[in-house]
């Protein structure tokens, strides 16, 4: 009998070790996250005690080579890990996304061998937490409009000044990958820097008024003439393609992660409507409820098939960033819709954090917006299929 949470039996397409990765992370989330997720979310705290546990499990930089502390996971296994983390909470998945796909990936992809050896093993071990400073208070969808500037010092290093906003893990990070404009040619003026957060002039402020993603630390970064040596510059990154390549990795993880949040909401909706009685029968026995449950199963199945295909393309190096854009756009929105449906099906109970759907729905408002809004991804794909730039 097909399972509601995997109606097309997509798991039969995963390799045995990919299923094992999924099962191990699933068990971790069931044991360590689900019992407390509602409380952590209410309190607006990220459970830092989980960081060493996630590191021991291998959740940070898991696709990187072993020499840098990675596990050399396949793209599908990486996606399944993100899916299971987000079954717990989008904030938990965001932590792993930023550490792995943004901070560690940036250093791995664009860093020198010395930078890789200096940072990656400690980041994989969870001893160093990283964040990624691209977005600014006045530059979100248009990152090229950033105001942060890096200028050469007399000693041959760099002096960085500017502000970054909506930075996941900003206030708990020991290192920040900061993107700034240099005085070079406009087309390739953007450069990346690996900045220790205890550098003089570096400060952060937590954004505490969020009604979404409350388990995640979101911050502003302030750089007031922060000086770093030339060795802190990521030598491989020139122009916007540097940070955008990292975002493609993170968005790939989001296309998978959102499946987890959606499945969590479906599971709760099925359990609740199957036992909640009204007018002498479980509400799952009514046509209105069944129509909505089937709608959730339908969209979830499509997400699972799409994500697996993305994984196959990623594996052979044939994945385009526009394909990732389309999946991120569709999956964040589908998961948000599913969470809202589940919230409604749970009635009054659905608005509490005693159940998951309201928390997931609120989180997914962020997921729908961050790492490229629905609209930005629409325009990326629109440009790709028409050849016309409509940004």
């Amino acid at each position, binding site marked *: 009998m097909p399972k509601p949470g995997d109606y097309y039996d997509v798991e039969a397409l995963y390799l*045995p*070790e990919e299923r*094992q990765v999924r099962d191990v992370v699933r068990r971790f989330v069931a044991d360590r996250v689900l019992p407390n997720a509602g409380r952590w979310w209410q309190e607006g705290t990220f459970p830092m005690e989980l960081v060493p546990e996630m590191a021991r*499990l*291998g959740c940070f930089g*898991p696709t990187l080579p*072993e020499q840098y502390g990675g*596990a050399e996971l396949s793209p599908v296994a990486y996606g399944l*890990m993100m899916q299971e983390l987000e079954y717990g909470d989008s904030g938990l998945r965001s932590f792993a996304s930023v550490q792995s796909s943004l901070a560690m990936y940036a250093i791995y992809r664009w860093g020198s061998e010395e930078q890789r050896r200096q940072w990656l093993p400690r980041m994989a071990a969870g001893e160093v937490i990283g964040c990624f400073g691209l977005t600014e208070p006045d530059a979100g969808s248009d990152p090229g409009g950033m105001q942060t500037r890096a200028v050469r010092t007399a000693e041959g290093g760099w002096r960085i000044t500017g502000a970054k906003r909506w930075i996941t893990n900003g206030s708990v990070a020991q290192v920040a990958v900061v993107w700034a404009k240099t005085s070079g040619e406009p087309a390739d003026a953007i450069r990346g820097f690996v900045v220790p957060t205890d550098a003089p002039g570096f400060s952060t402020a937590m954004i505490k008024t969020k009604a979404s993603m409350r388990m995640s630390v979101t911050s502003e970064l302030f750089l007031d003439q922060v000086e770093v040596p030339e060795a802190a510059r990521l030598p491989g990154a020139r122009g916007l393609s540097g940070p955008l390549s990292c975002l493609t990795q993170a968005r790939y993880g989001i296309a998978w992660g959102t499946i987890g949040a959606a499945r969590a909401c479906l599971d709760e909706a099925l359990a609740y409507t199957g036992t909640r009685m009204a007018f002498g029968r479980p509400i799952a026995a009514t046509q209105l409820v069944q129509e909505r449950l089937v709608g959730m199963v339908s969209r979830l199945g499509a997400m699972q098939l799409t994500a697996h295909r993305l994984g196959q393309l990623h594996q052979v190096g044939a994945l385009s960033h526009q394909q990732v854009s389309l999946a991120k756009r569709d999956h964040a929105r589908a998961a948000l819709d599913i969470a809202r449906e589940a919230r409604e099906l749970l009635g009054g109970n659905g608005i509490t954090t005693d159940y998951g759907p309201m928390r997931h729905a609120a989180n997914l408002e962020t997921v729908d917006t961050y790492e490229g809004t629905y609209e930005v991804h629409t325009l990326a794909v629109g440009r790709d299929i028409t050849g016309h730039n409509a940004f």
Partner: protein
Amino acid sequence: MKIAVLVKQVPDTATRIALAADGASIQTSGIKWVLNPYDEFAIEEALKLRDAHTGEVVLVSFGPDRVEETIRQGLAMGADRAIWVKEEPSGSAEMDYLGRAQVLVAALAQEAEWDLVLVGKQAVDDDAAQTGPLVAALLNWPQAMVVLGLEVDARARRLKVIRELEGATERVELPMPAVLGAQRGLNVPRYPTLPNIMKAKRKEVRQVALADLGLDAASLADDRRVVVEGYQLPPPRPEPKVLTGDPAEAAAELVQLLHREAQIL
């Protein structure tokens, strides 16, 4: 120390069991197969001993193609290598506990110098709890089952074992080599980590056919002494009785029912 852990693949405990048409076997389609939970305690204990005393942990399993995934799961926990006696799809299902124990012992006999054989105290599929005792008897080694605690004196080659009894524990001492059956509570099995899951793919799983062991499934089946005649599912739970109406009357009726029908008052 050279430690063998006998592992079995079983249906996930959440599986809803359905009987096959013959009534003497279960439907295996759609089952999620997992490592027997008691075997996880056995593997964990073996890994701890290896790490404390050096040596190696070898998994030994008998089963069809699908068990490779379970073996890899044990390797991902940290076992060093595995011996997999491959069960052909037809024929061997007829073996009894003794026949299957003979297969495992023949696999162990391919190598020398085992210090310890660990096994889950029972498998959660048939709950027979036969493998440990039968393997010990065939090897002519001492055994202790339902093990809750273990101390190894490697130099004296002695084991101090705490066994769980109903409402008590028992301390026994035995020489090595021996067969020990792990009980829940012996330890906390580790999660396989993601790097170890990937490394497990490269670990040695040596495939052995029954013929390589000088055995054949048909004769083992013919020699069986225990035959499964049939399975029966537990009877469906009767409809619950809901008492309605005046609370005082309902309470009186409840007392009557507890007395007359449930016979607990």
